């Protein structure tokens, strides 16, 4: 027979379970997401000690309003993912960050974008060094039709980053190591870069970007032409590169955004709808449009 003491110890006798009495229940009910009609950005657009700041950025292609009043900070050593349906303005927006849109006829940009406090659209800004500081990796790997070595050496040479061949060799080696490609190509540096596999070519392009000492690396769907293995290698690389660089990645893969980024920004028809910590955006967004997009409800 069970003694009263044993029963008491087992919790069968005595006071009520304390946790249910002590627990404070939140009484507010009926969670309301920000409505689809509301186009104000939801979430914290500012962060402490940002690498880049964007304020009231507007972009027009002719008469078409491609980006509308977007303000957003980009942090140091963070991966910021930009997601949204095609035509939402995410690629247009990252192209503003290193003035790639300057080359497009009829493209007009208003607002302010700074890198380390300096207005990158300022009068005295030379876009060539700017694009070294804010490098870009594209959707389709685009190595130069030259050797692997020359693909990397070209940038440092034109930017005058090396005094001699030994220094240039070192930059090539370091960049390929950082891009996780060195062991695969070290004996083939004189071979054409275009002979590498798609994933290797993309890492070669990342090494090429790294070689000119960037502060920010922009990636526009860097894995969309790659298989899952090459994608995993690039994603692992992005995670490593974050220690040294700021990375802004545009991706159509929400799984990729959730795997690689710390913050996510959701764009819709040129508006920055919501920005926030990646885990929050993908589990509990605050704007109905974000919720619709991440759950696959495209109206």
């Amino acid at each position, binding site marked *: *027979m*069970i003694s*009263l003491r044993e*029963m008491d110890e087992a919790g*069968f*006798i*005595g*006071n*009520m*379970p304390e946790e*249910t009495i002590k*627990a*404070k*229940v*939140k*009484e507010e*009910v*009926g*969670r309301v997401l920000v409505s689809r009609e509301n186009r104000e950005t939801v979430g914290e657009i500012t962060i402490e000690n940002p690498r880049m700041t964007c304020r009231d950025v507007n972009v027009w292609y002719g008469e078409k309003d491609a980006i509308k009043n977007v303000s957003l900070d980009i942090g140091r050593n963070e991966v910021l993912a930009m997601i949204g349906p095609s035509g939402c303005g995410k690629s247009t927006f990252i192209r503003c960050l290193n003035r790639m849109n300057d080359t497009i006829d009829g493209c007009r940009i208003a607002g302010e974008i700074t890198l380390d406090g300096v207005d990158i659209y300022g009068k005295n800004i030379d876009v060539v060094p700017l694009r070294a500081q804010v490098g870009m990796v594209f959707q389709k790997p685009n190595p130069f039709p030259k050797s692997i070595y020359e693909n990397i050496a070209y940038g440092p040479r034109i930017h005058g980053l090396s005094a001699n061949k030994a220094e240039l060799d070192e930059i090539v080696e370091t960049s390929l190591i950082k891009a996780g490609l060195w062991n695969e190509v070290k004996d083939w540096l004189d071979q054409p870069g275009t002979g590498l596999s798609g994933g290797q070519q993309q890492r070669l392009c990342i090494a090429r970007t790294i070689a000119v000492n960037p502060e920010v690396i922009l990636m526009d769907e860097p894995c969309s032409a790659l298989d899952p293995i090459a994608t995993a290698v690039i994603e692992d690389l992005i995670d490593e590169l974050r220690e040294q660089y700021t990375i802004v990645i545009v991706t159509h893969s*929400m*799984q990729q955004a*959730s795997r690689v980024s710390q913050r996510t920004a959701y764009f819709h028809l040129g508006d920055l709808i919501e920005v926030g*910590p990646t*885990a*929050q955006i*993908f*589990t*509990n*967004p605050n704007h109905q449009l*974000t*919720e*619709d997009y*991440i*759950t*696959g*409800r*495209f*109206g």
Partner: protein
Amino acid sequence: MPRDHTVRSYDQELDSLISRISEMGKVAEEQLAKAIEALITNDSKLAVNVICSDVQVNDLQNTVDRLTVRMLAMRQPMGSDLRHIISALKIAAELERIADYAANIAKNLMGLDHVSLEKPVGLIIRMAELASHMLKDVIGAYRETDAQKAMAVWHRDEDINQVYADLLSQLRSYMKVDSENIDIYTRLIFTARCCERIGDHIQNIAESVYFIIHGESSIESPMDKRNHACWD
């Protein structure tokens, strides 16, 4: 209002998951009702039926488990879908435990002499009935994704706890004067404990419903602050 998924089969799978949970809730509710009936009528045959039918709820839980694992792998859900699917897994586990407790109530009370125990058995029946109504309402709140309704059910557990406290104090005084029948009183305490636990599991279901809608816990605790910190 949420839109339908662009991929329609995703909606069908989610609907199927919600139907399975509702079905489980209904079966668990029936099990509890039969256990109460067996208790009131002292019907051993019905008690055995409750014990044997428990397997039905276990089977439904397996179905929910399979469906959720499949959906997690194939749909890679996000946002409210993710919360729905994760919560289905948790609610199914709670319902399975509730049905287990219903079977335990039936087991504990087989062959019990009711005549001399009218008062305490009456309180146990009261607890079980309260639990039964709560269960029905919480499954309704789940089906309708109604956080307000779910929280109203959550608060009603206090009523069960109050009856439980009264019953324990009553049984304690019985045991002091009637130590010969302590076995019977122990069985009653175990049975009452089953009802009390059912109330707690229903509270957990109510919290899951709240989580599906709000994306956060309904209970404020230091843990919440830590969870937010890891997003920063």
